[in-house]
């Protein structure tokens, strides 16, 4: 598989949210606006790329039996770094993402890529894989956040799209589930069209 294909698979064909249904908790929990979705996506991308790099470097040093706990410690360290940096420089975003920042640790996507890809490939491929999957995750969260923000508040990234209040339900919890349901269905159709 070429590196380009390795990078682009995360967007449509193997999109972590729309196809693999991984990392759904943050995908539903923080996407009240496109900006929050993008912030969460980029934070996860950073953790994913960093942990992929470290895991691919230490893959020959750790015994197979304790690999899962070791991966968890690596991931948890990077999550702590992200949360401290975000608290210092982007307090507003940190506040609105709240609990979901420490919960990046248990995002199945990060653990899944460490176990399924980074622990079996060289560092360069692991970086490309982490970037592709992470940006695919950010892409999905931004779209879901954008759809919910447009329908629920009539805005996109805080810019007014249409006047009026919008459908409040899309900003609230039910809108997250229903919005994601239709986006998964849409992605199925697009994937089939691409062949």
């Amino acid at each position, binding site marked *: 598989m070429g590196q380009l294909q390795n990078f682009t698979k995360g967007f449509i064909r193997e999109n972590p949210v729309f196809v693999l*249904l*991984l990392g*759904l*908790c*943050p995908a*539903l*929990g923080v996407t009240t606006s496109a900006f929050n979705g993008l912030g969460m996506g980029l934070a996860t991308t950073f953790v994913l790329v960093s942990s992929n790099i470290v895991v691919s470097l230490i893959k020959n040093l750790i015994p197979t039996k304790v690999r*899962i*706990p070791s991966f*968890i*410690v690596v991931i*948890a*360290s990077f*999550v*702590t770094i992200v*949360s*401290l940096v975000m608290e210092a420089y982007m307090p507003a975003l940190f506040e609105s993402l709240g*609990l979901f920042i*420490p*919960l990046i*640790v*248990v*995002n*199945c996507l990060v*653990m899944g890529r460490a176990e399924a890809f980074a622990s079996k490939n060289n560092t360069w491929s692991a970086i490309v894989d982490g970037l592709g999957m992470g940006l695919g995750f950010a892409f999905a969260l931004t779209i879901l956040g954008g759809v919910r923000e447009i329908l629920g508040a009539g805005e996109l990234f805080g810019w007014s799209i249409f006047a009026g209040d919008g459908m409040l*339900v899309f900003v*609230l*919890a*039910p*809108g*997250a*589930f*229903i919005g*994601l*349901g*239709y986006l*998964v*269905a849409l992605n*199925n*159709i697009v994937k089939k069209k691409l062949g």
Partner: protein
Amino acid sequence: MEYIIIIIGAVFVNNIVLAQFLGICPYLGVSARVSTSIGMSGAVMFVMTLATLVTFLIFNYILVPLHITYLQTISYILVVASLVQMVEIILKKVSPALYQALGIFLPLIVTNCAILGVTILAVRDDFGFNLLEGVVFAVGNALGFALTIILFAGIREHLELMDVPRGMRGAPAALVVAGILALAFMGFANLV
């Protein structure tokens, strides 16, 4: 009375799955059958209560006195992971029947963000829980998880027999159903 309010709040008003979006992976993953969803709920209840008890003590008596609360995430995930492993070993020895029922769900629980989420929420300053209240909070959240996943599994069993448009089959239809359930649970807002 206080404890009843904490439980009602956790089960209905701030439902862990439908209002707080924690534990979505098992919610969608093991809800195809009512029987498996009951097994998963049992395992979650067991681990969530134990994990909250242990992490509450660690946070208040080790991390806070030593001023190392920034290690919360790392220490919590290690506690949860080792606790699950320990529970698995003990159950296998002490109660093979319970192990048979919960065994396959236990490894899945390590990456269940509901567990880590509740243990972090239980020590939040704005709740100000003491140890017993924290544990009651965990039990309430586990009950809330059980209620929603069993309801959802019951609906999904029927959904399989329905004529759903082809693009919506599987995950999309399940997500829309979850959305409608969340809508129903919004009726409980402001209950406590």
